[in-house]
C-alpha cells in the first residue's frame, strides 16, 4: 500500500475512536458523562498539543513521549480540579469518573495529537486537534445517548416514557458499550473508509 493511503488513515474517524476507546467505552453509560469525558479529552488534547507546538525545537526525539505525557498529566490535574470545583454535577455523575479522567493523561489519543504538533506548525496543530476532539466528542455523545436511552429510558436525565417498558439492561454493561461503539465506528467507516487498521505504527 502506498504511503498516501496511510496518511489518509491517520485522519480517519475510526482511528480516533480506537485511540480514545478507554474513555469512549467507560464514560458513555449516560449522555451527561459522555459530554464531560468528550469535552475533557478535547480540552486536554488542545492544550497539550498547543504546548508541544510551542516547545517544538526544545524537545529531543527520544523524550518526546515522556514530555508529552507529562504535559498532558499537568493539564489533566488542572482540569480535573476545575471540573470538580465548578461542575460537581458532572464530576459525580459517574462512580469511577475520577479514575477515567486521570487515565486520560496517558491516552494515546492525546499523545498522537501532541506528536503531530511537534512536526506541524502552530495553526495546523490547533485546527487538527480541534477537529479530532470535536469528532470524538460528537461520537461519544451519540454512544452515550444511545446507551442511556436503551438502558435507562432517559436522555440527559429526562425520562422517555414510551421507552420505559423496553429497556435493555445490557446496554449499560461493558458489552453494550462495545456493541454501540462498534455500530458508531461502522457508520464512521461508511462515511470515511479506514483501510489499514493493521499497519498502524506506535500506540
Amino acid at each position, binding site marked *: 500500500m502506498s504511503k498516501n493511503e496511510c496518511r489518509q488513515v491517520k485522519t480517519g474517524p475510526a482511528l480516533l475512536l480506537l485511540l480514545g*476507546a*478507554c474513555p469512549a467505552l467507560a464514560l458513555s453509560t449516560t449522555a451527561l458523562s459522555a459530554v464531560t469525558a468528550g469535552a475533557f479529552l478535547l480540552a486536554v488534547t488542545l492544550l497539550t498539543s498547543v504546548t508541544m507546538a510551542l516547545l517544538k525545537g526544545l524537545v529531543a526525539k527520544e523524550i518526546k513521549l515522556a514530555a508529552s505525557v507529562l504535559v498532558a*498529566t499537568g493539564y489533566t490535574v488542572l482540569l480535573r480540579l476545575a471540573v470538580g470545583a465548578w461542575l460537581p454535577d458532572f464530576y459525580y455523575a459517574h462512580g469511577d469518573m475520577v479514575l*477515567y479522567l486521570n487515565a486520560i493523561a496517558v491516552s494515546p489519543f492525546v499523545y498522537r495529537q501532541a506528536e503531530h504538533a511537534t512536526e506541524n506548525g502552530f495553526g495546523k496543530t490547533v485546527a487538527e486537534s480541534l477537529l479530532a476532539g470535536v469528532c470524538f466528542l460528537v461520537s461519544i455523545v451519540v454512544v452515550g445517548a444511545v446507551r442511556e436511552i436503551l438502558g435507562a429510558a432517559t436522555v440527559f436525565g429526562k425520562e422517555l416514557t414510551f421507552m420505559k417498558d423496553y429497556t435493555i439492561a445490557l446496554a449499560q454493561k*461493558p458489552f453494550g458499550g462495545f456493541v454501540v461503539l*462498534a455500530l458508531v*465506528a461502522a457508520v464512521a467507516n461508511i462515511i470515511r*473508509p479506514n483501510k489499514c487498521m*493493521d499497519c498502524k505504527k506506535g500506540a
Partner: protein
Amino acid sequence: MKEMLALIMASVLASNFALTRFLGVETVLGQCKSTVKPLFLGLAVTATMVLSSILSWVVAEWALCPCSVLILPIFVIFVLGMTALVELFCRKVLKNTLGSGFAMIALNSAVLGVSLLNAGSGAKNYVHESFFTTVVAALAAGLGYALVLSVYTAIRNRMDDCSAPRAMRGLPLSLLTAGFISLALSCLSF
C-alpha cells in the same frame, strides 16, 4: 488465603482490566500481527504494573497521603520510569527489543490504573490496605491483561481470513470481538 484466591480470580477474569474496566483497551484493540508477540507484551505490561505499583504504594502510603493533587503526576513519572526500566531489561538481558511496545506500555492506562486503584484514588471499593495485597492485585491484573491480549490476538488472526461487510472491517469487528469476550468473562463472578 481464600480471599486472596478470590481477588486473583476476580482480577484475572471477572473484572478484567482491559475488557470490563476498559483500562488499556486501546492496546488490545490496536494489537497488530507484525509487532511484538502478545504474550511477551502482556508479560512486559505485568512487570511494569507490579514494579510501578510497588513504588506507588510506598510513596502514597508514606509520603503523599495529605497531598492528593500530586498523586497523578508522581504515578505517571513512576510508570514512565518503570517502562524504561523494563525496556532496558528486555534489550540488555533478553536481547529482545520491544520496539513500538514501549509506547504501548507507557501509554497503557491499565498500568497507571492499577497504581491509582491501589492507592484508592479511583473506585471506592477497591482500596488495598496491605502491601502484599497490592502486589498480588497488580500481578493478577497484569496476568489477566496478558491473557486477554493473547486470546484476542489469536481470534483476530483467524478472523483476518474471513470476509466481512465493508463497513464492519477494522475497528467495528475488533470491538464486537472484544465485546463478546467481555460478555463471556462477565458471566463469572467470584
